[in-house]
């Protein structure tokens, strides 16, 4: 059960998130409206009267400050306006659906990142200064030096092209994405490419923090009691070694959001990242503003969750 104090803390943070969201979207709003031209200027098929009607429909014919007032009041109603390119499509439901797709891929990538990173980190730590440790440490530098689109290219080449050729077309990964949420087999390759560079970072951090914890007295006590290595490591050491790893979950989430912009475009995943790049390329500024608003909210909530997790895992920390 959440205490009263915890609820107040969460409430305060939510207010802060709302402020950040409005601030971020305001900056983007003002910035984007400084760009010359509008989305209808190049459309030669419409006459002047129709263009004026369109400008009026999108409130582009009123002073910027009034536009901004409408925009901010829209945010509080959860209304981000209409797409400028696909006219008549409301942005909020569109982005909500796309955000859920990004969440699906991002969460898989995050699980994979943490899982692989921690296993490698623990192995390197308990075999400190052996060739296994050196291999894992060197591999982690190589891991975060490889851009995710390079990992993605190699994975596609191996699993979609070579595997198809070797198995005569029975087992292979088909590049693509079916429907909104994709098929189960389609998610792993993009998620792997997305999480791979960050797994190295998690591995490094886990190794360092495990080495620190393994030197502690309570680990020696646990060993002296005659507990097996496995129980000492899992129950006594790993749990405390987890604390520093939790602290980088925030930056990790931002990293995965950033990476998803590239990965979703490569694999044709209809998520927020793909929409973001498309809206920039097609100059659909209403969607650009909307995506930024969404990202600001997502990052705020993710950081809040990390802080709550932090207090849950380490009882010494209070709100």
């Amino acid at each position, binding site marked *: 059960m959440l205490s009263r104090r915890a609820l107040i803390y969460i409430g305060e943070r939510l207010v802060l998130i709302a402020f950040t969201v409005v601030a971020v979207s305001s900056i983007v709003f003002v910035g984007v409206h400084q760009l010359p031209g509008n989305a209808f200027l190049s459309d030669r098929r419409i006459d002047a009267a129709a263009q004026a009607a369109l400008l009026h429909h999108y409130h582009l014919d009123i002073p910027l400050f009034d536009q901004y007032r409408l925009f901010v009041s829209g945010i509080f109603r959860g209304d981000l306006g209409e797409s400028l390119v696909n006219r008549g499509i409301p942005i909020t439901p569109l982005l909500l659906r796309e955000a859920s797709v990004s969440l699906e891929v991002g969460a898989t990538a995050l699980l994979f990142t943490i899982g692989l990173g921690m296993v490698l980190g623990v192995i390197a730590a308990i075999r400190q200064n052996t060739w296994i440790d050196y291999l894992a440490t060197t591999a982690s530098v190589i891991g975060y030096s*490889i851009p995710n*689109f390079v990992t993605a290219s190699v994975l596609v080449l191996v699993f979609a*092209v070579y595997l198809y050729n070797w198995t005569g077309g029975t087992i292979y990964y088909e590049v693509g994405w079916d429907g909104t949420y994709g098929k189960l087999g389609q998610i792993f390759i993009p998620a792997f490419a997305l999480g791979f560079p960050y797994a190295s970072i998690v591995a490094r951090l886990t190794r360092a923090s495990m080495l620190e914890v393994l030197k502690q007295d309570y680990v020696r006590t646990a060993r002296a009691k005659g507990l097996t290595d496995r129980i000492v490591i899992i129950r006594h050491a790993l749990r405390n070694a987890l604390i520093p790893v939790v602290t980088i979950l925030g930056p990790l989430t931002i990293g995965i959001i950033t990476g998803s912009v590239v990965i979703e475009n490569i694999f044709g995943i209809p998520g927020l990242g793909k929409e973001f790049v498309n809206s920039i390329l097609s100059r659909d500024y209403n969607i650009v503003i909307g995506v930024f608003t969404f990202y600001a909210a997502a990052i705020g909530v993710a950081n809040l969750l990390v802080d709550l997790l932090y207090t849950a895992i380490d009882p010494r920390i209070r709100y």
Partner: protein
Amino acid sequence: MATAPGVATPDEYVGATIVREQTNLWADAWRRLKRNRLALVSTILLCGLVLVALVSLFWTPYPIWRQGVASTYQTPNSHFLLGADAAGRDIVSRLMVGAQISLEVGVGTQIVVALIGITIGLIAGYFRGWLDGIFSTLINIFYGIPDLLVALLLVLLLGRGLDKIIFAIAATRWMDMARLVRGQTLALREREFVEAARASGTRPNKILSRHILPNALGPIIVQATFGIPQAILFEAFLSFLGLGVQPPTPSWGAMAADGFHALRIAPHIVLAPAIALSLTLMAFNFLGDGLRDALDPRQKR
């Protein structure tokens, strides 16, 4: 009293001055860096990269704009050592010019980052108080914003020139440097030699430039070395998404994006820039690791 031949008498001991080999921080660091094989190999690789970039200013095997119908999608052969791309352009030539772009972005960004980060870090760390409060809040706000998205927005607002991309990356990447310099300054300002300088009436800007900055230079160099691959990676991302330097500028990221649709029939178009990019980033990261160990031997991994 007979002494064994070759053994010095006590008198000789006293008379001989013990000459200790003169050494300074940088010579010491260089000696340690040379023992780190990965860092040494990386240094050689990066020197080679700089050389290639310099050569590409004057000479490439083919002009980078030269297209050809016959050479379209050619796999590596004796004419085109790494093959040719979808427009029949020589990949080696384009990679060479791409090296130039990557290095410009990497080093250029770090120069801007160093200017912003060192200034903010020194001021925040030395004067503390409300200035520190403002700068620290600013740093925290920037950490909470996804850098790639802001850089994309800046490129959209500013345009797509190389200088604008360098500015956009630096504007979203200066915080690590500022935080590092601030931390160093906070620690150094309490040291005796800074106190002595202050007591003898040295002005703050002289204390910062003559006493604090030189002593923080080691970590700053390490940070900049790690910043270069991040900036290069960033530019590659932007170009890969089609929002980086203007095509047909042969940025490595743009080259990989160009070839992606033909991955099945001509993987070399993607793999050549991908490998060049990965090796460069790896070399900078290994060099950074090496420099960190060499410049600060107390902080063992």
